[in-house]
């Protein structure tokens, strides 16, 4: 019973983390039909920016309680510099190309950003354990969990509910839904579609950077972070259905629980099960569990 409880707690924490990391990917695909490999780079950028800026903040002896805000600020900073640059300078000229070609273009950009990160931050690992340890821990069924994990859960809730609220209850969100539905008619109706693409790409990337920044205190920030997260995010959004917001939530919960179960009961299949679920979903519901029928293209 106790083990089941800890499976549950681990599952919730891991699902929340995955959801934040993958949410931007599904948003960008849903709006722009881009399978965005650079999402992994933004995760890594967020982690590096968060670790280095927060590290400097703490080293100067500024109040450690504010380091959580500094993490947020550093993710914002790095995204607002890099994401609009990529969208304006490169991606916006590619929208007319096929989805697979755009996928390859973002892969090329991913390779470039991997090395840009190494050039800026070097190849040595960054550690900032202080924000992780600062909040103490809570215990469930005799096992102690760092309270910091609750921040990850809160972040996931705020990101998911916030995005759902924006999409369904604000003017901007409703216009965005129109853009998703038909970019050309939206343009004809006077919606600035280019600006929506720019904002969507930046916001989606920001979510990745936030996930990276808030993960930074829990891991050592090393090169190759983005390589790991991008396949995991693909698994999450593909399971739920590319471009679907509730789908991403469902995918994150499924992957989170499945992984947590396997870590506790069968650790040797931990990685295998995640991709097995992904392959099974693709085999039986190629467009994901939350998907609408799409008309056949001629």
């Amino acid at each position, binding site marked *: 019973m106790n083990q089941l409880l800890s499976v549950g707690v681990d599952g919730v924490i891991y699902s929340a983390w995955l959801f934040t990391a993958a949410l931007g990917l599904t948003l960008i695909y849903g709006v722009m*039909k881009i*399978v965005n490999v650079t999402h992994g780079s933004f995760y890594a950028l967020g982690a590096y920016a968060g670790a280095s800026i927060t590290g400097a903040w703490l080293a100067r002896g500024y109040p450690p309680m504010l380091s959580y805000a500094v993490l947020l600020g550093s993710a914002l900073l790095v995204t607002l510099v890099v994401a609009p640059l990529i969208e304006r300078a*490169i991606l916006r*000229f*590619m*929208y*007319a*190309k*096929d*989805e*697979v*070609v755009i*996928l*390859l*273009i973002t*892969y*090329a*950009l*991913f*390779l*470039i*950003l*991997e*090395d*840009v990160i*190494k*050039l800026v931050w070097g*190849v040595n690992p960054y550690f900032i354990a202080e924000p992780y340890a600062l909040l103490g821990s809570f215990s469930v069924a005799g096992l102690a969990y760092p309270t910091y994990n609750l921040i990850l859960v809160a972040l996931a809730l705020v990101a998911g509910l916030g995005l759902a609220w924006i999409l369904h209850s604000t003017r901007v969100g409703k216009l965005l839904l129109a853009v998703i539905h*038909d*970019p*050309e008619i939206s343009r004809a109706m006077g919606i600035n579609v280019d600006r929506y693409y720019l904002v969507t790409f930046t916001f989606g990337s920001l979510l990745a950077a936030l996930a990276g920044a808030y993960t930074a205190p829990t891991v050592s920030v090393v090169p190759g972070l983005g*390589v790991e997260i991008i*396949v995991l995010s*693909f*698994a999450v959004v*593909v399971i739920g259905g*590319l471009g679907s917001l509730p789908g991403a939530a469902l995918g994150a919960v499924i992957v989170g629980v499945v992984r947590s179960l396997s870590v506790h009961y069968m*650790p*040797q*299949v*931990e*990685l*295998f*099960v*995640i*991709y*097995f679920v*992904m*392959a099974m979903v*693709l*085999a039986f519901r*190629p*467009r994901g569990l939350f998907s609408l029928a799409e008309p056949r*293209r*001629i």
Partner: protein
Amino acid sequence: MTRDRTPLLIGVILVALLAGGAFLPQWAMFMVTIAIARGLVALGLMLLLRAGLVSFGQALYYCLGAYAAGALGRFFGISDIFAQMLAGAAAAGVAAFILGFLLAKYRGIFFGLLSLALSMILYGLLVKNEALGSTDGFNILPSTLFGIRPGPDWVRYAVLAAAAVVALLLALAVNRYLNTPLGRLAPAIKDNEIRVEYMGASARHAVHVMYVIAAVLAGVGGALAATTVGHIDPDMAFWTTSGEFIFITILAGTGSVVAPFAGALLYGVIHTTAYDLSPNTWQLSLGAALLLIIVFLPEGLWSLFPQRRWR
């Protein structure tokens, strides 16, 4: 239509490799052999690319071929290079035949994502499999040819020669295949699949055949890479390995069956020199090259999807 000069070109390259290979320094022999191994995988990807399919999981068959070759040595003590390549081809071919029933239905990003998932499944299995060395992988016995063990000075050349003969024979066979009705269906599937079906051809069958051929080529390439490097590990199935193969394929374009090998050699040269010059920016140069090719050479090296995107 002019006569196909490809067989002649392949013959010339084979003679040049067999004759000139012996005079290459050891490191260059290694580089050429690895280029042949990667070229085989890229040749398979080229077939799929002609039909508009990009596999983000070809490392699955590359790794399967390598582990089949490795298992032969580890469990049966066989280290004959031809037996290894045959085992790699067989393992990859059987797996692709089975998975092909599923994958042949998929197009576009879904083909890419499903193949990615399948290769990551193999990665996940190998990483945790202690009998096969987990993340460390294991070493491969030195290669033999027909029971003869070449001396240490000659083993690289022997592997190179065997690789060149097998790879170019396979390239010749693929070239023949491209001129069969089934081979010529690929560009038609890319252009308009529904018309292919109206003509009475089965796009699914054509893709399935293509997929198995591509996997066999990747399996042979994997076995070859395994015996050349002398070590295998699960990273051979990781998605970044698939990414490298895609890079080579796009660099080379779909013009000729020789192109993937040239592309692989070029990739090897870029990789080695860029890595030597500045180890932290070689991916940057690769990414920039890929971007430039996709954007500025869509006809020559990238003739895929010339039409506008339909939404």
